[in-house]
C-alpha cells in the first residue's frame, strides 16, 4: 500500500469509518503497524472525526441543507480554477487580444477606410514635369497639400527609345527609399498620358521623386529614366502667407 494510494483513495478516513473492504482493511492495518507516518495520520484523523461526531451530537454541526446548487455549478467552478492558473490566464489574454484586435479593426479602422474610399469632389490634379537629369531633380518641384485627401499625378513622356516600350514606376522618399512601386504602368487617354491616383495619408510630409523607367520588352532592361519630383507639405505650412 503506497502513500499516494492512501491519500488519494481516502484510505485513512474510510478505515476509521469502517468503509474499507476486509482486504483493504487488512492491508492498511499491516501497513500502519510498521509505518510511523501513517499511524500518526490515523491518530490525527481519529481525533478530528471524534471531534466532528462530538460536535454533531452537541448540536454544533447543524446544516440547513440549502447548499444544493444547479447542475451548471461544477462547470463554473472548473472555469474559476482554470482562470487562476497562470498559463491559462496568459492564453486567455492572448485569445482576448486576438479577438479584440479584429473587433477594433472592424469598429474603428474599417469605417475610417470606407470613409476614405468615398468619392471626393474637387480632387486636385497635378501635372508633373520630368527631368532625366538627376542633378536637376530638385528644381521645379510642385507642392501637394497634406490635407488634400486624394490627388492625382499626371505626366506625359514625350520621348521613347523603343517602339513598344513597357513602363515601371516607383516613388522614393528623401532617403531614396521606395515607398510605392508598380511594374505595370500604362498610358491612358488619347494623348498617351499617364496618371497615378494617390492618397495623402499614404505620404508623410517631405520630398519625393516619382521615377518612371522605360523598359525594353525584348531585353527586360530599363533603357531610360524620367524623374518627377514633388513635395508633400503639411497643412500648417501651406496656409502660411
Amino acid at each position, binding site marked *: 500500500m503506497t502513500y499516494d494510494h492512501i491519500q488519494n483513495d*481516502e484510505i485513512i478516513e474510510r478505515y476509521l469509518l469502517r468503509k474499507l473492504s476486509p482486504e483493504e482493511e487488512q492491508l492498511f492495518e499491516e501497513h500502519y*503497524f510498521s*509505518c510511523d507516518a501513517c499511524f500518526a495520520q490515523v491518530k490525527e484523523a481519529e481525533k478530528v472525526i*471524534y471531534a466532528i461526531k462530538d460536535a454533531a451530537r452537541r448540536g454544533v*454541526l447543524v446544516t440547513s441543507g440549502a447548499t*444544493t446548487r444547479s447542475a451548471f455549478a461544477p462547470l463554473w467552478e472548473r472555469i474559476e480554477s482554470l482562470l487562476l492558473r497562470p498559463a491559462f490566464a496568459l492564453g486567455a489574454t492572448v485569445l482576448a487580444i486576438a479577438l479584440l484586435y479584429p473587433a477594433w479593426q472592424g469598429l474603428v479602422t474599417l469605417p475610417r477606410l470606407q470613409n476614405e474610399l468615398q468619392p471626393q469632389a474637387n480632387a486636385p490634379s497635378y501635372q508633373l514635369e520630368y527631368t532625366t537629369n538627376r542633378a536637376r531633380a530638385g528644381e521645379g518641384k510642385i507642392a501637394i497639400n497634406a490635407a488634400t485627401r486624394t490627388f492625382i499625378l499626371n505626366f506625359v513622356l514625350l520621348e521613347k527609345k523603343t517602339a513598344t516600350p513597357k513602363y515601371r514606376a516607383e516613388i522614393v522618399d528623401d532617403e531614396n527609399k521606395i515607398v510605392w512601386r508598380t511594374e505595370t504602368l500604362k498610358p491612358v487617354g488619347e494623348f498617351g498620358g499617364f496618371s497615378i491616383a494617390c492618397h495623402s495619408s499614404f505620404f508623410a510630409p517631405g520630398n519625393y521623386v516619382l521615377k518612371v523607367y522605360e523598359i525594353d520588352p525584348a531585353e527586360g532592361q530599363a533603357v531610360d529614366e524620367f524623374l518627377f519630383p514633388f513635395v508633400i507639405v503639411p497643412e500648417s505650412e501651406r496656409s502660411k502667407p
Partner: protein
Amino acid sequence: MEPEDSKQEDVKLVRGIEAGDRAAEECLLQKYRERVLLNVRVKMEYHVMAEDVCQEVLLALLETARKPEGIKEPENLGNLITVLCRNKAVDWFRKTKYQRREVDIDETQEEKLGGTHGVLTEDEKSGVDEVIGALKEIDKQILRLKYLVGLPYKQIAERLHRSESAVRKRGSRAYEQLRNVLG
C-alpha cells in the same frame, strides 16, 4: 521510523523476548500498545470495552513471543498483531452479543463517541465549536457527509452538484482547521 527499519527492530525484539529479555517485552508493548488500542477501538466501534480487549491482544502477543519459535515470521509482526486484534474483537462480539442488545441505543451512541480514547478538553471543544461555527454551510455539509455519513468525496460532489476537486479542497481545508485546534 521507516517500515523496513521497524521490521528489523521487530525481529530483534522478538528474539530478545524468546531469550527472556524483559526490556524487550516492555519495548514491544510500548511500540504497539497505541496501535493495538486504535485498531481494536475501530473494530469495536469505539466501545468502552476496547481497552480491555487491547490488553487481551497484547497479552496474547507476549505469550506467543515468549514461546520458542512462537512467532514464525517476526519481520511480519504487524500481520500477526492485526490477526490477533481481529480475533479478540470477534470473540468479544460473540461473548457480548446478547448483552449488547439490551443496551439503550443512546447509551451505545455515547459509548461509540466517547470510548476511552482522548476525550476532548474544554479548550479543544471550544476551538472545534469556533471553527465549525465559522464554516460556510457547504463546508458543514461536506463534513457531515464525509465523516458522519461516511461518503467518499466523489459521491459528496455528486450530491451537492459540485466538482470533486472543489469538494475535496473544501473538505481538506475544514479538516486542517480542525486538526490545528486539536493540536
